[in-house]
């Protein structure tokens, strides 16, 4: 089955834009520009998903990726906006890795040309809609669905724990050190009076 002209135009336009924005993302020095072009990549990819009759995934791509995840990125960029001095790292192992990737790409193009089956001429109208995917998700994939919800919970807790401020613990340690110093000075100046109290005092700064 050959694709119609309109289909081809849409595919080439969207894929060219996708690759352009993706390259733009990883080459920009300014993180805000990179985030914005990543949003462009995700929008174009959503269009490509729609040409594959994956309507639900196309909407999800825009909602979750271009919406939620990118907002997270924007917030972090705003917190720590640092211009880089030398953005690209030219270590030999990294260049080797990229060259290996290019070699794999050439090989992959050879394999991909060997003729995979063309897209099915007809799929049912419900292909890729919320109803049919939800049906499959809650019948055949309940266990992975629950596992991914658990993963999201762990990610929330982990994110809070990792990014939490340690300033309070540092303050507590400093206060304990100050108390210990005062106690030592008292002991030095008035040794006789404090000899009895010393045994009763809890060990200073001791909650480690």
């Amino acid at each position, binding site marked *: 089955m050959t694709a119609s002209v309109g289909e081809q135009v849409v595919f080439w336009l969207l894929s060219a834009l996708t690759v352009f924005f993706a390259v733009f993302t990883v080459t920009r020095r300014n993180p805000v520009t990179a985030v914005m072009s990543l949003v462009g990549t995700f929008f174009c990819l959503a269009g490509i998903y729609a040409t594959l009759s994956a309507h639900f995934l196309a909407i999800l791509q825009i909602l979750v990726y271009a919406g939620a995840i990118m907002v997270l990125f924007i917030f972090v960029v705003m917190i720590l906006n640092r211009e880089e001095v030398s953005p690209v790292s030219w270590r030999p192992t990294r260049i080797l890795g990229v060259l290996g990737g290019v070699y794999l790409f050439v090989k992959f193009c050879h394999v991909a040309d060997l003729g995979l089956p063309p*897209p099915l001429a007809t799929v049912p109208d419900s292909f890729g809609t919320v109803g049919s995917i939800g049906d499959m998700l809650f019948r055949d994939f309940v266990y992975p669905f629950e596992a991914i919800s658990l993963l*999201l919970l762990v990610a929330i807790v982990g994110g809070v724990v990792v990014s939490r401020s340690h300033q309070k613990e540092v303050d507590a340690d400093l206060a304990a050190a100050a108390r210990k110093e005062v106690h030592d000075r008292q002991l030095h100046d008035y040794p006789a009076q404090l000899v009895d109290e010393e045994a009763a005092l809890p060990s200073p700064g001791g909650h480690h």
Partner: protein
Amino acid sequence: MPTNYYLVLSFILFLVGTGGVLMRRNTLIVLMGIELQLNGGNLAMLAFSRALGDEKGHVFAFLIIALAAAEAAVGLALLVGLFRGRQTVNLDEATLMKR
């Protein structure tokens, strides 16, 4: 369009993401490269799903999107922690575990 066009496009996306992960020093851009890699994988998943007329690929793409959200949350939290501790987002300076 034939499936192999979509597959080549997905491989290009994955390759661009890999280049970003390997070559860039800014941790934010590295995380964006990982997102690009995941999207390349998703596109291949959906292309095969369309070619075979099977919706299981869509379910997996859905799960991968949820996974990417979790990964972005934890990765960005780690990045904020790194910035708090060392005042940098440069990956080459994050060498605490090397010594």
